[in-house]
């Protein structure tokens, strides 16, 4: 494949798209494997990978499948730009250039999350990084306490992985799923309203640890709501969205304070984020 001494850190590997599921009008889930089958590289939940659309460029996406499923990797990608446009135009069997894993994962192996009661708060495509953590925890269910998934989307059709949300996860031990949509819609019996208000209605006790991921405005409002409910900032983990290019902390794009979001993040605890200069 490459005729050089050693592979450079920016050189991607080849993966094959083996399955494409259309989740919503603008989100598709791509299953990528090595040409000879299996996971392209090992990773931990919350880490990201760089996918290339040759001619357009590269972009970083969080890996949606759990590292415990060894024979493939999945990415839920929302169509919102040049590169995602090209990725959405891919067909099954097409080869793709992929490199990674990049960034620090959610601390699933340390006692920061182990044996703790957990709340997953996701908005829109924000479920993608958390999906990997939830599947990982369901595979090792006894290491973790209760799991509550709070997921908000614009409308019923905008829920990503609706099948898993409504059928698979609620059946798991001590796992509850709470769904909400922004505006009322006929044929929808669940909760209606934005996620921050929904959190208050669910009256979570502040002894749980929170993993929060979604559009920046939602993260800000949810964090405020959680603090009102008595949560400490050290209990809330979130991901910081920043422009990333190399993924290895050299190209300088994602530098905030003395941290590089692609290497020291994108997963941060909220008190760590306060130490950074407010430039995000």
């Amino acid at each position, binding site marked *: *494949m*490459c*005729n*050089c*001494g*050693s*592979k*450079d*850190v*920016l*050189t*991607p*590997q*080849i993966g094959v798209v083996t399955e494409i599921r259309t989740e919503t009008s603008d989100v598709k889930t791509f299953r990528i494997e090595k040409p000879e089958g299996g996971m392209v590289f090992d990773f931990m939940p919350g880490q990201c990978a760089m996918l*290339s659309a*040759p*001619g*357009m*460029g*590269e972009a970083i996406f969080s890996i949606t499948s759990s590292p415990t499923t060894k024979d493939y990797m999945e990415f839920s990608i929302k169509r*919102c*730009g040049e590169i995602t446009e090209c990725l959405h135009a891919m*067909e099954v*069997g*097409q*080869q*793709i*250039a992929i490199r990674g894993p990049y960034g620090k994962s959610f601390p699933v192996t340390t006692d920061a999350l182990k044996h703790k009661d957990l709340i997953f708060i996701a908005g829109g495509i924000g479920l993608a990084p958390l999906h990997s953590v939830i599947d990982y925890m369901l595979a090792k269910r006894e290491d973790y306490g209760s799991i509550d998934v709070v997921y908000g989307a614009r409308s019923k059709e905008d829920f990503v992985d609706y099948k898993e949300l409504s059928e698979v996860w609620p059946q798991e031990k001590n796992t509850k799923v709470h769904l909400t949509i922004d505006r009322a819609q006929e044929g929808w019996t669940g909760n209606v309203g934005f996620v921050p208000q929904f959190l208050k209605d669910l009256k979570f006790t502040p002894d749980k640890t929170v993993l929060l991921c979604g*559009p*920046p405005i939602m993260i800000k409002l949810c964090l405020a709501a959680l603090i009102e409910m008595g949560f400490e900032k050290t209990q809330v983990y979130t991901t910081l*969205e*920043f*422009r990333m*290019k*190399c993924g*290895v902390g*050299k*190209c*300088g*794009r*994602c*530098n*905030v*304070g*003395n941290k590089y979001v692609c290497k020291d993040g994108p997963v941060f605890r909220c008190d760590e984020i306060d130490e950074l*200069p407010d*430039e*995000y």
Partner: protein
Amino acid sequence: MLKINKAKWLELFAALSAQGTLYVPANVDDKVDFTIWQNATEVDLQATQTAKSIKNIFFPQVENLLDFKTDGLKLSVEQRMLPEEATIAFGVRGCDVRSFEVLDKVFLKDPVDTFYKARRENCTIVSLACSAPDETCFCGTFAIDATNPGGDVTTWLVGDELFWQANTDKGSQLTEKVKTLLVEGDAAEVAAQQKATKEIMAKMPLADFKIAAKIPAEQEKVFNSTVWQQLSGTCLSCCACTYVCPTCHCYDVRDFEVDNKVERFRCWDSCMCKDFTKMAAVNPRVSRLERFRQRYMHKLVYFPENNEGTFACVGCGRCLQKCPVNLNIVKVAKALEVAKDV
């Protein structure tokens, strides 16, 4: 201490260029810049430093990384060959030699950048001590001894004699290859020149310029100081200072579509560009003040915090000479030092 007379320099350059591509500071259309030596090149060892820094020997402005070939659903990735040709950088001043250590802290830190590493290891650095520092130089601020610049081989230009001293084994291997041209020299002449140069440096306007310890220490206050408004007000936010700076290392990775294949290349990028941090939804540093502040906070505060106090500046003074509106790191540091709210 070995030395070689001016009359034999042409032979020395010919012998060196036999060992590998020789870069020398030469007079290129009324500017002194590093170019590949041919026997017609007008080598200029008097110029205090070159117009552009020498970082493009290791970190070129444009560098093809890999090629994509697509046929049908198949995709092949072919990384470009790592550069193996030996190079020799002759006449590198003390500040530029130190700038390689700053770049090493970025590119050779794990995960290693193999293109940079290949170029860096295949290059022998022949440094040239300063004997006529300029008023824009302030390498003293970063404890760089311009009269003994280090590198694989150190040379001193005293009158018509070029004194030669190998420091590393790479340097002594090179010395072996050109031994026949070198004769014994008296080290005292070099010591005399060093003393004289140090006296001149003490008279320079920026001789006692220091980066106040409080700038890296009180990061929060420095970040929120009102000084940035006054300083960045007239900055043009062009990229001149970042492209001539020897320690600026930000880059962009872009694709270029040719007929049947795609070339992925790396090129210099600048935090002063408007779209450096532009994302789909928002650009965290949309105003000129934020970009200006990020450049100097990175060089004076963030980089030292991650790299045991090494500043991302070597005091070469190129930004002092090249900025269209004469804004530079010295003015920033001095303004922050006397600022009332820091």
